[in-house]
């Protein structure tokens, strides 16, 4: 089977980690790494791995855009807006890992199939990828009136982009809790924990339901969803059994990373790259199927 060729824009932590995951994929091929700093470790690693590199950003790619059909954008919200503009009309699929959110939010286990044909999809936030599947699972049993998530990540895993604009995390996540999770009202809190050695990413989900909780059905839905996310994020797990108390459901998660480029405690970054990879693979499979049909 022919793999679909993909490119990664952005040679920072996320881009580099994503590249390493793509290199193991049976559906997509890491064809090009697009950066702006030839000295960056990401570009150097790509080159060492025999991946084509472009060091003058999106302009460089535009001159040889046949290199990739799917692009992962791991730059910044501002740069992403420009990239989408420049790539218009070239028929590329773009998976946005920045907070720009031009395209619809995608949570692979919840709504990926709805957006498989869309040109630009957005990966929400790390906290969103970790918690929205669970909120959606609970909401599929009973209406969630209010869902609140608390994401605690190791200080060392919060990059300068996150730090300079931490409101983007809380606002984007809250919105996606409502739009994708299905909660009537959403709220997100993020805490940076400087503890040494760094702690693994933790997510707490607190939901208030409209009615008394149907304990058994909710437990089952949560466990099912954890297993589904587990398929592509192996370090995603319940820290303890969910607590159900009348109308309130509390879920405690831990996300351990694979340790590809980033250390295992950075589950927040791992779940973003793993989820983006999953989206890229699904889009690629749809493209392969479509091609087969045309033939």
């Amino acid at each position: 089977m022919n793999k679909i060729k993909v490119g990664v824009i952005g040679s920072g932590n996320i881009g580099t980690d994503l590249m390493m995951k793509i290199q193991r994929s049976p559906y997509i091929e890491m064809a090009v790494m697009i950066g702006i700093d030839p000295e960056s470790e990401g570009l150097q690693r790509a080159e060492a791995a025999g991946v084509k590199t472009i060091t003058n950003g999106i302009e460089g790619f535009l001159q040889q855009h046949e290199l990739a059909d799917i692009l992962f954008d791991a730059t910044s919200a501002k740069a992403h807006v420009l990239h989408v503009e420049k790539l218009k009309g070239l028929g590329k699929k773009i998976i946005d890992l920045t907070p720009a959110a031009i395209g619809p939010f995608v949570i692979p286990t919840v709504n990926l199939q709805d957006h498989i044909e869309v040109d630009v999809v957005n990966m929400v936030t790390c906290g969103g990828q970790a918690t929205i599947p669970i909120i959606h699972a609970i909401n599929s049993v009973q209406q969630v009136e209010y869902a609140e998530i608390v994401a605690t990540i190791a200080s060392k895993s919060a990059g300068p982009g996150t730090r300079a604009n931490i409101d983007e995390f809380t606002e984007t996540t809250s919105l996606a809790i409502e739009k994708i999770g299905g909660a009537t009202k959403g709220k997100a809190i993020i805490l940076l924990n400087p503890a040494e050695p760094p702690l693994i990413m933790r997510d707490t989900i607190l939901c208030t339901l409209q009615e008394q909780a149907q304990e058994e059905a909710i437990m089952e839905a949560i466990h099912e969803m954890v297993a589904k996310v587990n398929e592509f994020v192996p370090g995603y797990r319940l820290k303890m059994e969910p607590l159900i108390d009348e109308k309130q459901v509390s879920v405690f998660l831990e996300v351990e990373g694979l340790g590809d480029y980033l250390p295992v405690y950075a589950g927040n970054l791992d779940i973003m790259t793993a989820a983006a990879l999953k989206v890229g693979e699904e889009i690629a499979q749809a493209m392969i199927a479509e091609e087969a049909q045309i033939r």
Partner: protein
Amino acid sequence: MMPIYITEVAMRDGSHVVGHQFTKEQVRNITSQLSAAGMPYIEVTHGDGLGGSSLQYGLSKEYDIELIKEAALVAGNSKITVLLIPGIGTIKDLKEAYAAGAKAVRVATHVTEADVSKQHIEMAKSLGMEAFGFLMMAHSAPPEKVLEQALLMESYGADAVYVTDSAGAMLPSDVRNRIRLLRENLNIEVGFHAHNNLSLAVANTLVAIEEGATRIDASVCCLGAGAGNTQTEVLVAVLNRMEVESGIDLYKMLDLADYVRAEVLPHPQDITTGSLVMGYAGVYSSFLRHANIAGEKVGIDARTILVELGKRHIVGGQEDMIIEVAQQIAKQKVGIV
């Protein structure tokens, strides 16, 4: 000597004590009395800052923006200030607080994470507000680290940086080292926020003032998380005796203290075993209530939970860890693990 500017925090830090149940009437009464007493700054916000009303930290009885509005109506010459912890509160919340009448904001981060405060400090300044940096859990980092982080806040435009002893764990020498280093190296004012868990709040505050701190937090009747803060009426009395100018009328503060004791305080703010252990263990003061609840739930001593939290360097905001740690200890106790 430079004048000392006191910020009354009973309606913010004290919000923890009343389970975030302040009423509009209480806020109006306290604010107007504080204003009459000449209090320069009055903080009104959920205990965990703007946006703090949550299942994680406790839901407010009244949305804090509404309380800010009430306070602003009767604040007179006093400035209403708010607390904002980036990651919990946002710029949107800050703008609403400003529209409601807040004139100043303290942007609070854990002592090692000052860089998340940049956008909020800059926005506050561009709105024309006074903006202060607030370095929480300052006992947990060495003085040089506190300085490095304070310099960041200064570079974002902060009008002052506070050394915040959130856990009430600092000894006078800890206060002296940190305030002195900041005073020597910052061009802006230095502030200090104490908790009374080791009965050192007033003493530590005096050390801070001695070392050049000019922005001081205090709470009437000690109304604040843990054993409370530096007791405002006591501090004013002491400053009067020392002939340090605070501009605050002692007798009016004493009258206010009587009102708060009668109408607001659910129980006297003494140094309970829990708060003492907190200062001793060096964990966040607002953990106390949660540790008590968790301890009761799983049948273990809240002190054991607090000491374990301290060992694990749990930081402010990680209230979700408390029940988990409690359950782990309980399991170990019966030998399941």
